[in-house]
Every structure is written in structure tokens, then in C-alpha cells.
């Protein structure tokens, strides 16, 4: 009889009995007793019996390829683990479990301890150390961990564009911003979209900044306190007056009157001037052509 390992057949075979056997095996092959290669072999042998697709193919090429399943999936130290919930059998319906579970953050911090506690993850963290929706977890920004790539491997400006896309996924979404506890609106994204900074990024500049270059990724100071610090990374000697120009305020009569009226002035100046010049030209052309038709001999 051919062996077919799927959750369905596993359960059908009697998970409890099987689980006992495997648990004993795990104890025997504990990490302390074995070197890394056999650990990995062990992981692949047992976890991948069920969890081969769809994540594993991309996982092999990801930045996390060297990790063991249980390095992150800390709740599942015994195989086979208790089903998280009644499973339909459809692997594509599996919930992205880590996205909704703070334990996932703990799993990340196991290796990425330099990322600090949530209180330090300004402005996304909370002073009380709690992470609550709608504030993001690691994976909300960093994406599916089985497919994660090192951002340093991307050349500029693709790296910045990827980072920008991560930020704008929430900050460019009015539903996320307007009703949320932060209520800062999508103006930062909109005004950045019309800035020299983004235009240069889109035109391939390796130096023009994205969101993260000014606002930081994990450890960022509150830019409202000393915004010129961010400017000084590129514009040496920038003052608070300099930084006041990059406010992410929309160009409206109320918010940025000087910019607003400068634009209005030039819009009308250009419109009226060109209208007059085109009028002059059309009269000239009409006359010249008419004169030619009227007096062919001339």
C-alpha cells in the first residue's frame, strides 16, 4: 500500500497514536543532541510531510532558508501538533496565522532582537508596549516570512519603491488612516507623490529619498520634534526653516497659501498670455492665407 501523507490521511490514520510516536522521536533527536544538518533534515522530514506546498518552494530561496520550522513556529514543539482548528483539508485556505498572532512578533524577535520592543518601534509601537490593531505587526510590513528577501539585495531605486509600497499600503489607504486611532489622513502620501523626491526616485535616482529614508524603519525619532535631523542626512546644514518646507501639507489656500497663490498667479498669467499670442497668430495666418487666395498674382 503506497504511503500518501496528507492531513486527511494523517488524521484518518489516527493522529493520537502517531503523535505519541513522533513526540518520542523528537525527544530522541533533540537539538542539544544533534548538529544543525540533522536538525534541518529532521525538520524537513517531519514538518514537510504535511506542509510542503505552497510555501516551501519559495522558502528554499528566501532569506530564511537556513532556519528550522520550529525556530519560528515556537508553539509546535511536538509533532504532529494539535490542529489549530478543525482543518478543511484545503491547504490554500490556511490562515496566515502569524499575521493575527502576537506570538509571531516574539518569533521574529528571537533572532531580530536588535529591533527592540514594541515601545521602541516608533511610531508604530505603543508606549505601553502593547501591539494592537490597527498598528502593524512585523509581517504587515515585511510580508510573507517564507518568501522574504533581503531588502539590501535590491538595487536602488527598486528598493525604495518596494519600501514606499509597503508604507503606502496603509498610509495611502483612506480607510486605514481616516478612521484609525492615528487619524493622520493620506496627505503625506499624496504630497510625497507630487514631490521632487518621488519624481527623482521614479526617474531612477539612487539618491532621492523614499519614506524610510526620512522617517526611518524601526527606530525613528518623532519627526515633528526635530524634522531637520532627517533633512540633514542629505542637505547638510538644513535648519528648522528648511524642514518646514517639507510638511506633507497639501497645497491649498488654507494650508500653504504662498504656494497656492504662486501657482494660481502663474496659471492665469500663462493662460492669458498664450491665449493672446495664439489669437494674434491665428489672425495673422488667416490674413496671410486669405491674401494669397484673394490675390494669387501677388
Amino acid at each position, binding site marked *: 500500500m503506497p504511503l500518501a501523507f496528507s492531513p486527511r490521511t494523517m488524521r484518518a490514520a489516527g493522529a493520537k497514536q502517531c503523535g505519541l510516536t513522533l513526540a518520542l522521536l523528537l525527544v530522541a533527536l533533540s537539538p542539544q543532541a544533534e548538529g544543525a544538518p540533522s536538525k534541518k533534515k529532521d525538520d524537513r522530514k517531519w514538518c514537510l510531510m504535511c506542509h510542503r506546498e505552497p510555501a516551501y518552494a519559495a522558502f528554499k530561496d528566501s532569506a530564511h532558508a537556513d532556519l528550522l520550522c520550529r525556530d519560528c513556529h515556537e508553539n509546535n514543539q511536538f509533532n504532529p501538533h494539535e490542529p489549530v482548528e478543525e482543518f478543511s483539508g484545503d491547504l490554500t485556505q490556511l490562515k496566515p496565522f502569524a499575521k493575527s498572532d502576537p506570538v509571531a512578533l516574539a518569533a521574529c524577535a528571537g533572532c531580530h532582537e536588535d529591533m527592540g520592543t514594541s515601545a521602541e518601534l516608533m511610531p508604530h509601537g505603543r508606549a505601553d508596549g502593547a501591539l494592537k490593531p490597527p498598528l502593524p505587526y512585523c509581517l504587515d510590513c515585511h510580508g510573507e516570512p517564507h518568501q522574504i528577501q533581503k531588502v539590501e539585495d535590491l538595487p536602488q531605486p527598486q528598493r525604495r519603491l518596494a519600501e514606499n509600497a509597503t508604507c503606502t499600503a496603509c498610509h495611502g489607504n483612506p480607510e486605514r488612516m481616516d478612521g484609525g486611532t492615528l487619524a493622520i489622513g493620506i496627505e503625506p502620501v499624496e504630497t510625497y507623490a*507630487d514631490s*521632487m523626491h*518621488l*519624481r*527623482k526616485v*521614479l*526617474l*531612477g*535616482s*539612487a*539618491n532621492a529619498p523614499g519614506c524610510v529614508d526620512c522617517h526611518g524603519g524601526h527606530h525613528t525619532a518623532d519627526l515633528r520634534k526635530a524634522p531637520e535631523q532627517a533633512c540633514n542626512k542629505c*542637505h*547638510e*546644514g*538644513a*535648519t528648522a*526653516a*528648511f524642514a*518646514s*518646507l517639507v510638511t506633507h501639507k497639501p497645497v491649498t489656500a488654507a494650508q*500653504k497659501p*504662498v*504656494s497656492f497663490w*504662486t*501657482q494660481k498667479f*502663474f*496659471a492665469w*498669467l*500663462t493662460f492669458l*498670455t*498664450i491665449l493672446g*499670442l*495664439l489669437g*494674434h*497668430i491665428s*489672425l*495673422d*495666418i*488667416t*490674413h*496671410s*492665407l*486669405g491674401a*494669397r487666395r484673394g490675390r494669387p498674382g501677388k
Partner: protein
Amino acid sequence: VDALESEETPVAPAEPAEPPPLVAAPAVDAPESKEPPAAPVEPLQLLGQPAVDALERSESPAATVEPVPPPVATVLRFDLHQRLQHGLLASSFVLLVVTGWPLAAHSAKASASAAIVALFGGIERCSGIHRIAAIVMVIASLYHLAYLAVLASRRGLSASMLPSPGDLRNLGQNLLFFVGKRGERPKFPRFSYFEKFDYWAVFWGVAIMVGSGLVRWFPVEATGIFPPWVYEIAHYAHADEALLAALAIFIWHFYNVHLRPGVFPMSRVFLTGRLTLEQLQEEHGAEYEELMRARAQAEAKAKEGG
């Protein structure tokens, strides 16, 4: 600008011993009283001989040695300095418009912007070329101002480039002519109202563009000197005035100078600096008549003297 005629003619003949003037002596200044009218003064041609030179040359003995086709009578409109100033200004202008476009365009993703940036080898080099072209434009402008200063010190600037009530009259007459309510084109002076418009539009435009461009080039320094709203104005004025200037030059200036019926496809005056007498009569009727009057006077004087 050719603002060099000194209409106060009595003064001019009083300085015959002066070194050759930097710029074209006005036609009415023809110092025919000190030399026979036939004397050829070829080497100084480019630096501005009396505009009636060519007329005289056709009668010179040298021309009779070999049977060459009779030269077309021309007058010098723009001397070498003016043509150089125009050349520097025009080439830097085109370069500035093209290299500035990608960052001024609201959609940087647009294919035209990307194509221009690729043409110049990347956005950083595009910006570098923009700054070099800006320096060339500043040099052209300083050259022009120095030229005006030299003119002013030598012979006094004429008012021929300044706007005058006659321009409004000419505008009215020209519009009437266009719609058929007037039989003939108005007789324009040395600089018609639309040429004065071009000159002063560029004058204002260069001042705005250089000022706002410097502020954008050195934002840290600028915000250290001026309040931040100066940068705000410079930021928007630079792109918006650039659009206005580009439209005015590529539509209006090109039409009036090169594309209008009768001149199409291109006028060569900006290269040769010369107008035929026929062109002068047609396009600057008032100046032509003045020239003819001055010639008649000079001839009468020469006869008297001889």
C-alpha cells in the same frame, strides 16, 4: 537687444578718431563726410559697419575687376555680439527646457520624461547638464548686460527697445490689417511691438528663472538667508514660468520669426545678422524710411563738402 542707434546724430560725426566701435554703428551715423563713399572696409564688416555699406560696395572699383553678380543690398541688423548672445541664450534655453522637463512634469512616470532621462544618461546627469546650461545662460545674460553698459558709455543707448505709445498704435493697426480693415501693414520701427514683447518677456523670464533656479539649486543656503516662503515661490515659479517661456518661444517666437508665411521654414537673420533692404522696408517700414532720409542727407552733405 540692439539698442544702439544714437538718434542724436549731431554728436556722432564729432568722434571720428575713436577706435572702431564695439558694435554696429547706426545706419544714420555713416561717416561719409570723412571718407569717400566707395572705400571698402571689409575687415570691420562683422563688427558693425554702417548699414549702408553693402550699397556702397556694389559701386566700389574692386567690384568691377571681376564680373561678380551684383550683391544684394543688405543692412546689418544684429552685430556679432548680438548674434553670439542670442546663440548662447537659445542653445542654453533649449537644453534647459529639455533637461528640466522630466522633473517639472507632474507625472514622472510618463514615458516622455523617462525617455529624456535615458537620453541624457540618468537623472543625475540630466540635472548636471541642466546646471551647466544654466551657467551658460547666466553668462549670456551678463554678456548682454556688459554689452549694453559698453554701448551706454560709448554713445548712449537709444530708446528703440523701450515700450512706447507707438507700439500700442502699431498693435491696433496690425490687428486692423489682419482683419482686412486696413490696406497695408503698419510701418514698424527698428523693433516692432512683438519683438519688444519677446525681448522683455525674456528679460523678465531670465530674471525669474535664474533667481528661482539658484534658490532651488542651493536650498539650504537660500533658507538660511530668506524666509521659507521665498523657497515656496521659487519652487513653483521655476516650473510654471518655464512652461510659459517654452510655450512663448516655441509657438509665438518661432511663428513670428521663422514659420509665418513668407519666411517659412527658417529665417537666417539670427545667423547672418543681415536684412535685405526689401525685408527692411516690409518689416520695419519706419526704420527703412529713416535710413533713406539719412542717406539722402549724408549724400547732400558729401556733395556740399566735395
